[in-house]
């Protein structure tokens, strides 16, 4: 047996641990696939999430900004962590720089969504991705483009 396999296998747990989010603003459950060109992950919007109390009155629907956030966390931040030198990613600073999303279907409480992201470019710390979100029937919920700056505090200015 050659000694390779494990070395380059993406470690999903490792990436999730490095996410700088926690409840109630973590919108990644698990990753299904990741490589240098893209990522795929899932999240279940639990019915007791805080935003359903207010969006909308007596008619809970997942807010578009939260869907966008979910796509950004899976599609841009998880991918960004993977693309960065994992050793150097302990002091990760991230910022959303732009997003342009079209919405097609509502997402109701307790729905599970799948996010697919495709890297357009990652240059000078800016990661731009084409993202889309699918529901459990494989229908497109929303799609568009999101970019963010992925900075490492140790890398100087």
């Amino acid at each position: 047996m050659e000694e390779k396999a494990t070395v380059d296998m993406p470690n999903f747990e490792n990436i999730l641990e490095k996410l700088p989010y926690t409840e109630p603003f973590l919108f990644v459950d698990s990753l299904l696939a990741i490589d240098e060109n893209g990522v795929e992950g899932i999240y279940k919007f639990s019915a007791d999430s805080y935003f359903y109390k207010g969006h909308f009155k007596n008619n809970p629907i997942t807010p578009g900004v939260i869907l966008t956030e979910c796509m950004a966390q899976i599609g841009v931040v998880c991918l960004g962590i993977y693309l960065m030198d994992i050793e150097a990613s302990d002091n990760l600073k991230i910022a959303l720089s732009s997003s342009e999303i079209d919405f097609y279907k509502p997402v109701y409480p307790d729905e599970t969504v799948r996010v697919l992201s495709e890297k357009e470019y990652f240059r000078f710390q800016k990661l731009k991705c084409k993202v889309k979100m699918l529901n459990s029937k494989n229908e497109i919920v929303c799609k568009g483009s999101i970019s963010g700056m992925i900075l490492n505090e140790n890398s100087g200015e």
Partner: protein
Amino acid sequence: MTTAEIYQKLEPIIKTYLPEDVNASEIKRDSDLTKQLNINSAHLVDIVLDIEDAFDVEFKNEDMEKLRTVDDTIAIIKKKITK
């Protein structure tokens, strides 16, 4: 390509990414792109990517570190196209 020619091609690229509260007339050769023209770091990357297309050059990380003013940008472009 002369400095003036480079500037002529560069100015419209910078203009595209100026925030609404900065007037295009504020673009000067010694303007600091982020501090004076208020261009954010993400748009600075966009400017560099547009420059790469417009001048058919490639920026490296060390170029990015040197890039502060319009004149810095012109100097980097000049060095690359005369290579």
